[in-house]
């Protein structure tokens, strides 16, 4: 008996150090999309490599509610993770908004150069708040799309512009341009385009097609407005229950998957842009003067957002400095 007790103790200690558990992760991304296919492949790989100790289970298509409800459910431990848009973390970690300010980037090349240096700030900031970042994903650039050609800020003032509910950056940007935008959840956008409640949206090409908004729009202003970012996070306390080796496996597999997703997203955005043109959407080119005017407008919005503490001002200045250096080096 005396011999048995320590043996059992050792066994149970080992077991608690390497518990089999499920990470329940919710997302708005519908099942069957290339994004979800890659995530499911990653889950299978993780399960195999950890010999079943880590089981990743997804709830796709918004079955667990909006990004906001996913984060709430994570707090009450109903879910361990979520793959959500960066905006969902606006109130939690302001660094998550770093890439989301208007007209910051001119192209994907700039985004990628910046991410290398600045992703770690976002990851650390979320870690301080109890979230482990398993991946940051690129969603491409959002463009202004409308049923009338938009070249200048005065063109947009006549439009009925949609902004996502609770999206402080979009709201402030348009208000700063003299527009009173209409805030709606994503679920209402298609119907509102149909009824004419709104006629202008800022969206990336692939989403405009996936949600069929493009059928209600005729023009896209060919100047990237804002870069879209998503993040997959898990609750720190749930993640720590896995052994360090299993944690490392999950992080490694997910990092490789997110790299694949970014490559896929780049292909998707290029394909979707071409498809928009093939299906009757006219891309409106801007003159240099128009672009400068939009930039000036954005500057005002970014200053206003700094006053509201929406993003980390010093870090953003550093990012802008890097962009200047990158552009000069060309």
């Amino acid at each position, binding site marked *: 008996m005396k011999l048995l007790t320590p043996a059992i103790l050792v066994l149970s200690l080992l077991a608690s150090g390497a518990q089999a558990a499920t990470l329940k992760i919710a997302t708005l991304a519908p099942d069957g999309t290339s994004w979800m296919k890659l995530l499911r492949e990653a889950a299978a790989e993780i399960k195999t490599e950890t010999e079943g100790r880590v089981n990743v289970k997804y709830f796709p298509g918004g079955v667990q509610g909006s990004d906001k409800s996913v984060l709430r459910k994570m707090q009450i431990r109903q879910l361990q993770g979520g793959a959500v848009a960066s905006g969902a973390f606006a109130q939690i970690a302001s660094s998550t908004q770093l890439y989301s300010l208007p007209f910051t980037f001119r192209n994907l090349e700039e985004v990628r150069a910046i991410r290398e240096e600045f992703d770690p700030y976002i990851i650390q900031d979320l870690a301080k708040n109890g979230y482990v970042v398993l991946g940051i994903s690129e969603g491409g650039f959002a463009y202004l799309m409308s049923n009338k050609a938009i070249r200048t800020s005065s063109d947009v003032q006549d439009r009925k512009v949609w902004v996502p509910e609770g999206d402080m950056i979009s709201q402030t940007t348009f208000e700063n341009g003299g527009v009173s935008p209409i805030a709606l959840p994503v679920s209402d956008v*298609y119907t509102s385009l149909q009824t004419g409640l709104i006629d202008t949206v800022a969206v990336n090409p692939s989403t405009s097609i996936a949600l069929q908004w493009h*059928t209600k729009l005729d023009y896209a202003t060919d100047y990237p407005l804002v870069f879209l970012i998503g993040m997959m996070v898990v609750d720190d306390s749930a993640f720590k229950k896995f052994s360090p080796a299993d944690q490392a496996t999950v992080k490694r597999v997910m990092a490789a998957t997110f790299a694949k997703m970014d490559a896929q997203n780049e292909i998707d955005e290029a394909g979707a842009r*071409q498809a928009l043109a093939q299906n009757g959407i006219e891309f409106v080119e801007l003159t240099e003067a128009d672009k400068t005017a939009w930039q000036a407008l954005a500057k005002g919005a970014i200053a206003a957002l700094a006053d509201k503490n929406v993003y980390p001002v010093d870090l953003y200045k550093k990012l802008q400095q890097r962009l200047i250096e990158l552009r000069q080096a060309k």
Partner: protein
Amino acid sequence: MAACSVGRLPSNLSRSMMNQDDPAVVAAGAPAYLLLLDALVLTYPDDEDFLLAASRLYGAYAGVFAQDEEQAKSMADKAMTYARRALCEYDDDACRLVDGPADALNNALYLDYDSDDIAVFYAFASAWAGWIQANTDDWNAIAQLSKVTILMTWVASHDPAYDNATVQVYLGVLETQLPPSLGGKPEAGRAHFERAIELTDGHNLMAKVLFAKQYARLMFEQELHDRLLQETLSADPHFEGLTLINRLAQRQAHLLLAESADYFE
């Protein structure tokens, strides 16, 4: 005279195929029939019936028996080409309409066409749906989805039970592409699946399988999912015009049911 007797061949062959009990027989036999239809279309290039029969069979083969994605794409492409030729033979305006804006297509269908026109539009819409299904990696294909919905909705407005209520099944699938959080209307899709089941007295088993696969999975309703699949498996698949599809539905039901716990729990 020869053309006249040959003319009945596609519809009779199609009928005997749809009533076939063993999908393997059809899988093995269909390629020969595809070649025969190609030859008939070559011989009678303006014959809408041959073009439509060829489109239907290539479309069905792409969706059900294709060995890989590339074969499915090429078969679906051929189905689409034949359907387009049939539609253009049938009506010049319709031929232009389907390539134009969605709203114009919608308006013209209700103003300028009636129930006499549904066969060609339905065949075209089915080929189009199959082509999009085979090309989901192509944004240009996905961008055209709303026009298929417009065509199918118009067909169903004239004949809700068209093609053994398969028109309702198409609409069910089309309406369950997106969750409500992204603006989808899965409840509308559910209503179409239920209508298909009701209109065929439960004989269209593919309606039940796609109801489970599309709606129940999207809305995370495991009980409904498993019940529909169990019903499919215990049903008699034999029904005029649906036997082959029902056999395939049962095969799919097995697979979906086996994945159920993994997906929902």
